[in-house]
């Protein structure tokens, strides 16, 4: 029983970083219906920006970490304004391809600037400190990640449900032409969405980087975050978070009781099943567009 509980707790812990990435993907999808594949590299750039501020400029972590979140926000806005907005008559497919291209460019820039050697980010809490509850262990940093994911989910939920800007974002996704006719400045809304999404993703990057930093560190969390977002229905913030936890728990239980070798791929098998039997995702409301 202890083993089972430990696996569930560990699953929730690892699911928290997937949840943050999933949230970031859902924010953009809610507004533009684009799965944003540059999400991981935006977080990567923010983590390395914080590393640079601390290592080269000698900045304290309590200044460098917020500065990295602001950097991600600005970078997201700049990318949307300078590249995505310039696409001529964009289709969803072309926008996806642009995000993949941007991912490669950012990855290349980070590799070129910082090299491929593994590093770690200074952080006030060691990634290897843990809390013991009974016989169950949980990393202190994982508790923080868990809290951050839940807090951000709640804030974003309130933002989308109860603020004018949040409603404008939803309107922009559901019908951009009508939204524009209703006076919503959809370009500005999209720009803000990219900034917000990059900032949320950067928090995942900053919480992963204290363990090991290298240019490919965000690939796995990004893919798992995307998987969680798909499972949750792509537009549901609580759905993405709950799916991320579910994914983490299933991975751990599968690794513990069935096969540790196929632990990492079980997430994708689940997505296939979800898409086959409930294509709108586990938690999203299914919208039917009038034609």
């Amino acid at each position, binding site marked *: 029983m202890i083993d089972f509980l*430990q*696996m569930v707790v560990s699953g929730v812990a690892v699911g928290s970083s997937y949840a943050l990435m999933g949230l970031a993907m859902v924010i953009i999808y809610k507004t533009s219906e684009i799965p944003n594949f540059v999400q991981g590299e935006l977080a990567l750039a923010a983590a390395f920006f914080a590393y640079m501020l601390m290592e080269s400029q000698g900045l304290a972590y309590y200044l460098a970490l917020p500065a990295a979140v602001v950097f991600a926000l600005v970078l997201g806005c700049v990318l949307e304004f300078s590249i995505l907005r310039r696409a001529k008559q964009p289709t969803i497919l072309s926008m996806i391809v642009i995000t993949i291209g941007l991912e490669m460019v950012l990855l290349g820039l980070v590799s070129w600037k910082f090299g491929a050697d593994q590093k*770690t980010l200074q952080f006030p809490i060691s990634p*290897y400190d843990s809390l013991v509850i009974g016989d169950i*262990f949980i990393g202190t940093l994982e508790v923080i990640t868990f809290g951050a994911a839940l807090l951000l989910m709640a804030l974003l939920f309130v933002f989308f449900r109860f603020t004018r800007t949040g409603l404008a974002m939803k309107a922009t996704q559901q019908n951009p032409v009508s939204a524009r006719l209703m006076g919503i400045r959809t370009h500005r809304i999209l720009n803000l969405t990219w900034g917000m999404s990059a900032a949320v993703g950067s928090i995942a990057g900053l919480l992963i980087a204290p363990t090991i930093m*290298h240019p490919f560190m965000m690939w796995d969390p990004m893919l798992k975050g995307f998987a969680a977002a798909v499972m949750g229905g792509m537009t549901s913030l609580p759905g993405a978070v709950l799916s991320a936890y579910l994914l983490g728990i299933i*991975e751990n239980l599968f690794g513990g009781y069935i096969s*540790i*070798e196929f632990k*990492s791929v079980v997430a994708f098998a689940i997505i296939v099943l979800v898409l086959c039997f409930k294509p709108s995702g586990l938690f999203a409301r299914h919208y039917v567009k009038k034609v």
Partner: protein
Amino acid sequence: MRKRLISVLAILMLSFVPVSGVSAEEGVSDKEIHIGQWGPQTGPAAAWGSVARGTDAYFKMLNAQGGIHGRMLVHHMFDDAYNPAKTKAGVKELQEGTGMFAWVSGVGTSPGLAVRDYLMDRGIPWIGPSAGSLHWVSPPHKYLFAVYPLYYMEAKVLVRYAVKEMGLKKVAVAYLNDEYGKNGLRGAREALAEFGLETVVEVPVEIKDTDMKPHVMKLRKSEADMVLLWTSVGHAVRLVGTCKAMNFTPQFMSTSTCSDFPLMMHISKGLWAGTICATFGELPDSGNALLQKYKKEAYEAFAAQGERWGLFFYAGIIFAEPMVEALKRCGPDPTREKLVAELEGLRNFKGIGPHVSYKPFDPNDPMSRQGTRETFLVQCLEDGSAKKLTDWITAD
């Protein structure tokens, strides 16, 4: 018409006249010898990227000293990101485009396996693969000369030390689920069998795994008193860190690929202290005269700014030393066959690594192409330096 005929004949005749100074051997000209090498500068194994950069600095040092019999070594190094498909594409491009005389080092078992048959089928020498895989010598290949001690021998030496010297009998193995990891696992099993023991648990790690808790739960449940880590650098650090987070503190032992202690201490935030590793080269702070010469004349003179003087960097020198020695012995007109003959003639050659000896090619004798069986054990100290636990040990 007659003039044109004469021109055509002249061109035809010229094409059969040997051009002065151009050697018939591929990759060798009057002034240059072209040597190829791959190594991950990006990707999951990038920590081992400094091997190729070490070889590069070594060749630059030799060139600054006049090259080998007046010929400059032209080093063609490319980044394969530890991706066998990229290794194969890069090797073919360089071999068929520029033409390499020989290949040196090359990090990784899987990338090396992707090009081994391509090089051997064409009779192109490949010296010092940066991996201790049995695949290089079992069966042996005429043109493939291994320098790196075999992983399974390293694993045997470590497990024997744990059982005999430290009295640790509950041995668990966490291994990368590929040829590299399985070589270590095989050595551990064989060494334990010598004492009538078995591993208490064997935990495979996939290259893309980042969450190590399920792995550590299995290790902890086994109550192992020694965990042998045969994984990538990143996985080894994550495993040790997760063990610490879960209050599981066995003796850790690991392969030479994780024996660059300053690096390991830096990325593990100090948790690597106490770990025992096999290694194949002089320690970075050793007073060995040749090592100090390389540090001054290769590293300090030619390494890029920010490059660290560590085992992985000068491993690139260790793997290339036998080839350079054989090239020197080839004399002024090197050919591939001469290079092979001179390598076969090396007996107890000593650079900054283990003693290296080869024999005339025998398809039934792996040791005709496995240059060394020597390794020694070191323990990581709190300040990142290494404590030598044994002298060079010859493994079987």
